[in-house]
């Protein structure tokens, strides 16, 4: 009897060790995806273009995914669009995901010529014309960056035949914008030519997308034209809670010297606009400094979260929370760990970090798999299906991670999915003794969710888009049937 038990234990351990070993090895083409409580529903290769922001829009009776792309790679600067037969600089992919098991690629809008961060059209936001105060009610507007030099607005009412409406040009380092559909106010991330920082905010009224109206430039004192001395950390991107919440949360310092700036939206839009140090300070409520070793890529607000643990407390039952996601930049763990942080900003002039999350490196030997390991971004949809309950974090070679955030003081991973690599997956290199040493690995870069509960992840290393759904206990935690 005892012998049988020992053999059983031995076999169990052997199976576990074998499985763990397989899990830890570098990815190979043909191997199945690694998953827990998440299931693949459908895929699209996105024409093997390096992907940044996906935005999923319910458009009439269809669901359309708009995906921004980085520029091309050294090996393939302008991939061929099979629909046109032409080589096109990476831009924006438009995919019908009404049936998520059978995504249909509708159109590629070429972006700016240029490789990696210098080309493409990384960012994309969508507003219906009927929601914008002065929009064409029959139009659907796509706001995108054009490489690093401009912002563009397209009418994608017919997503297979987009029409360019307007372009805001003469900029540098355009990046992660935010657009309020109910007001048309846009917080455009740009580098204005005379500012001392690579990226700052240009606030625009895009309520009539055909006629953009600039409201003001905004940044940190020391970044404005004519200033001298130390230059504060550059912006990565803001998220606004709109007129109702009256706050804009700005994330600075992608992977270093990060902080969150909490800004009074009304004062920002209607306050004095000349970029003097006093005027730049005027709308600021507070800043939450992070370690110099980390930066803020995404600052996702969740105001008024009920905290079950505090339910019987006479005060502080609900908390205003900001989830901060750092961006890993260097391959193969060449920098301090970039991860996820939760801040309690209920008392706005005393914001406080309350918890953190990272994928355990040893769970997949991720520092050895190749490419980046660490966080990059979260879903930004505030649709009720997941908002304030589940968060999805793109973690580069560790795939996508589903977090139960109902108690943000104790976030808990409840699922993950690491897609399989394909022949299209691009290599990632590090320099060893002056020479490149390259590996191929998934690089899950961005994620978005839709109101139906599907999760869309896209790959920086050209592996395309994977559409997922929760299963098992993760699905139950989200309250999905």
């Amino acid at each position, binding site marked *: 009897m005892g012998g049988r038990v020992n053999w059983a234990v031995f076999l169990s351990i052997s199976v576990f060790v074998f499985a763990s070993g397989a899990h830890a090895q570098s990815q190979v083409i043909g191997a199945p995806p690694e998953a827990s409580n998440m299931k693949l529903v459908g895929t699209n290769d996105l024409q093997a273009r390096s992907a940044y922001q996906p935005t999923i829009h319910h458009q009439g009776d269809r669901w359309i995914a708009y995906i921004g792309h980085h520029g091309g790679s050294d090996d393939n600067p302008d991939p061929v669009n099979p629909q046109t037969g032409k080589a096109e600089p990476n831009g924006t992919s438009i995919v019908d995901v009404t049936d998520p098991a059978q995504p249909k690629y509708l159109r590629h809008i070429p972006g700016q010529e240029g490789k990696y961060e*210098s080309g493409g059209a990384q960012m994309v936001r969508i507003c219906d014309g009927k929601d914008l105060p002065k929009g064409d009610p029959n139009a659907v507007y796509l706001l995108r960056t054009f490489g690093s030099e401009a912002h563009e607005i397209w009418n994608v009412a017919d997503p297979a035949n987009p029409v360019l409406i307007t372009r805001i040009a003469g900029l540098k380092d355009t990046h992660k914008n935010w657009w309020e559909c109910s007001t048309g106010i846009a917080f455009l991330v740009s580098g204005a030519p005379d500012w*001392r920082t690579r990226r700052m905010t240009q606030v625009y009224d895009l309520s009539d997308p055909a006629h953009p109206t600039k409201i003001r430039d905004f940044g940190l004192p020391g970044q404005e034209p004519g200033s001298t001395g130390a230059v504060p950390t550059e912006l990565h991107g803001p998220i606004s809670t709109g007129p109702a919440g009256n706050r804009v949360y700005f994330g600075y310092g992608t*992977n270093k010297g990060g902080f969150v700036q909490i800004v009074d939206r009304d004062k920002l839009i209607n306050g004095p606009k000349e970029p003097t140090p006093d005027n730049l300070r005027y709308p600021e409520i507070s800043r939450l400094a992070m370690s*110099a070793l980390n930066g803020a890529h995404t600052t996702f607000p969740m105001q008024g979260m009920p905290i079950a643990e505090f339910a019987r407390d006479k005060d502080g039952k609900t908390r205003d929370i900001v989830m901060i996601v750092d961006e890993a*930049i260097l391959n193969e763990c060449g*920098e301090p760990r970039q991860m996820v942080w939760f801040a309690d900003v209920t008392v706005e002039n005393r914001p406080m970090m309350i918890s953190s999350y990272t994928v355990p490196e040893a769970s997949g030997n991720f520092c050895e798999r190749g490419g980046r390991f660490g966080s990059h971004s979260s879903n930004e949809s505030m649709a009720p299906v997941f908002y304030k309950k589940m968060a999805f974090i793109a973690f580069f070679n560790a795939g996508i991670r589903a977090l139960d955030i109902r108690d943000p003081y104790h976030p808990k991973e409840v699922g993950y999915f690491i897609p399989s690599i394909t022949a299209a997956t691009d290599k990632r290199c590090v*320099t060893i003794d002056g020479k490149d040493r390259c590996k191929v690995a998934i690089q899950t870069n961005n994620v978005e969710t839709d109101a139906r509960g599907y999760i869309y992840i896209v790959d920086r290393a050209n592996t395309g888009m994977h559409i997922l759904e929760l299963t098992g206990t993760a699905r139950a935690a989200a309250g999905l049937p």
Partner: protein
Amino acid sequence: MIAIAALTLGALSGGAAYENARPRTGVWREIAWPFPRDGWPAGRAFRCGAASCGDEIEVYVRPKIGFCNCDSGVADDDEVDRVADLDLMSPRFVPLKAGDVVRVADMPGRLRSYDLKMPTGVQHAAVGIAVSRRCDLLVAVAQGTGEAPRVQQVALEFLASADMTRWMTAAMDGR
């Protein structure tokens, strides 16, 4: 041409292997990295006394891996203001004029001269240097009590030495 020196005073911060390469003896001596930990690993710091350099001059050098636009490199003077580590000494610095292109350890970039108001209130001259290779930066800043052109000349000669060139190249390779 100033002779290059290095006294191995050790006491270097950080543990990167590249810190093991040390320039040889001369008028410069290596000192401990004098700044608190920030977002980047510590670099190397050197001092040249007034007897050798006319005025006391210090040079601080370190790589910043993954901190550069991979295509445009160090594009303008604003970038030198941002990245060249002047703020480690003082947040109060004013450029004297437009910067110039420079090449250090066979890497292209820019340099710029500044008036630097030290925390003690004393005015120093400073020269910020930022050069790049692919997506990585190497930054150096020199400061001293003399005139900016002299600080610049002395610093560039020091950085052009064979030992420093070898070390900077190795540091950019992660060695």
